[in-house]
């Protein structure tokens, strides 16, 4: 059953029609890839799902609940997590604080909780810090945990962006090019982690230009072109489709299907 259903989303900026009745479905417990040429509307679609952009038309249903029209923090409450294509970190805060800010159900983030439930939240902080450190371990960022994120390299910032999404214990995560700017070995490691999380029941919708990642790790792939979802199928089906070559890969048919 689809955990996320995007139905007929249209969006135009001024005269530019960026999304044209885009629809897709993500099955629970899968890694679903979203590909398409630059500017085809992938990021806009993801932002619309997360309530960062208001669609002109269309609805988004998550776990049977209509989430289109909700503010992003409500969508977070519903169990979704989101990571930006271009990292939007808190640059004066440490890597650790960036992750901790993403955690769910914190006692100490409310005004009264912070003041009157100190013992509770201090214990929770220690637990959450250890959880954050596990994520940072995967991302190779433990040595930088107490550095301000403004001091990090571009790729490291991207990693923190992904780390924040993992930190919030979501049911489903929307990732916008998680491996972009990340070195190949680490990119692969991240995808292996995502697959392990999928095996535990998490669902992912991932925009990715690195085809080899999707071919290895995705259960299903959608392709967008000019604001429309034009193609979908298993990686094998998609890669054998001539439309996929014509609009996305190019002339050469030499993309290897690994594994």
């Amino acid at each position: 059953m689809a955990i996320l259903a995007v139905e007929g989303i249209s969006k135009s900026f001024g005269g530019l029609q960026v999304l044209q009745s885009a629809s897709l479905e993500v099955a629970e417990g899968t890694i679903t890839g979203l590909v398409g040429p630059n500017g085809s509307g992938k990021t806009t679609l993801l932002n619309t799902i997360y309530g960062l952009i208001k669609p002109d038309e269309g609805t988004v249903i998550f776990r049977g609940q209509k989430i289109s029209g909700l503010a992003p923090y409500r969508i977070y409450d519903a169990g979704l997590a989101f990571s930006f294509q271009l990292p939007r970190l808190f640059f004066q805060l440490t890597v650790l604080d960036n992750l901790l800010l993403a955690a769910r159900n914190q006692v100490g983030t409310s005004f009264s909780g912070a003041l009157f439930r100190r013992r509770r939240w201090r214990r929770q902080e220690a637990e959450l810090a250890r959880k954050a450190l596990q994520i940072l371990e995967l991302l190779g960022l433990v040595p930088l945990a107490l550095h301000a994120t403004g001091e990090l390299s571009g790729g490291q910032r991207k990693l923190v962006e992904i780390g924040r999404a993992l930190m919030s214990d979501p049911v489903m995560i929307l990732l916008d090019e998680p491996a972009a700017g990340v070195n190949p070995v680490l990119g692969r490691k991240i995808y292996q982690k995502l697959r392990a999380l999928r095996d535990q029941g998490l669902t992912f919708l991932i925009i990715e230009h690195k085809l080899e990642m999707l071919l290895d790790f995705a259960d299903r792939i959608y392709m967008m072109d000019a604001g429309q979802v034009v193609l979908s199928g298993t990686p094998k089906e998609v890669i054998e489709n001539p439309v996929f070559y014509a609009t996305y890969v190019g002339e050469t048919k030499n993309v290897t299907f690994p594994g």
Partner: protein
Amino acid sequence: MDLTVYLLDTLVFMGIFALLAMSLNVEYGFTGLGNFGKVAFFMAGAYTYAITAALGWPFYLCLVFAALVAGALGALISLPALRLREDYLAIVTLTFGEILRIIIKAEQGLAGGVWGITIPSAFAGLDLTPRMTAWANVVLVWVIVVGVFVFLQLLINTPYGRVLRGIREDDVAVQVLGKSFVLYKAQALMVGSAIAGVAGGLFAQYLRFIDPYMFLPLVTFLVWVMLILGGPANHWGALIGAVIVEFFNRGSRFLKDYLVLPFDPNNVQFIIFGLLIILLLLYRPYGLFREKPLRTGAEAEVLKWPSSP
């Protein structure tokens, strides 16, 4: 004037402005909200104190009520302002201060209008000498300064304070991570305004006379100078910034009274403040005191982590 009383007077003003600087620090230093109408909430507190004291309320209740009224105004102003783009907050708060002042000026029946209003001293019944009254005021103001300082340290070094700082850096990202920034911004404005209200109450109590001309936008400007000089997002910075600026502010009046100079030191000080700000922004943009990393106990876990360096 008695030199000791003069010094004690300076201490009282340092304390009152320290409260204002700390209140702006909650809003701007930690949450990134540019409140350019600080004087409005200061004035609201001062007039609330004046009116409730005239009703015969004990001074501590007057102060609490001053905080409540100013805090409520802070919440009120946050409603329209926080939904608009960032720069509108500056315009809305700035305008609010002037509007409030004009209303009070015009409403003769409320609190004396342009003629001002006199306020009974909190220590009236105690039959103190002027010097003892001055001491009592210093103690009253600084006990509250210390109380507010400790309260803010407790509030800021928490996951709550982390969210405020996050909002300062990128409020959309905070929203994406599940926290409604409107709520937090409104709370920050409320807390900041309530503290400014207490400062206003203390100001009224101390001077025992206030009129609308004491609440010009210049007060807001001074508070900003204090915070930028001391260092935003550091409560010590706000405190020390207020002490330094008030030292110059009062000192120049002192000079004027005791020395014959070819110029008015009161006017020269504003030139100095202007220069100071320019130099500071050029060479020490974070002020005298830097922001300290958050301490919630989480950072200690990093050092315990096996693979940490």
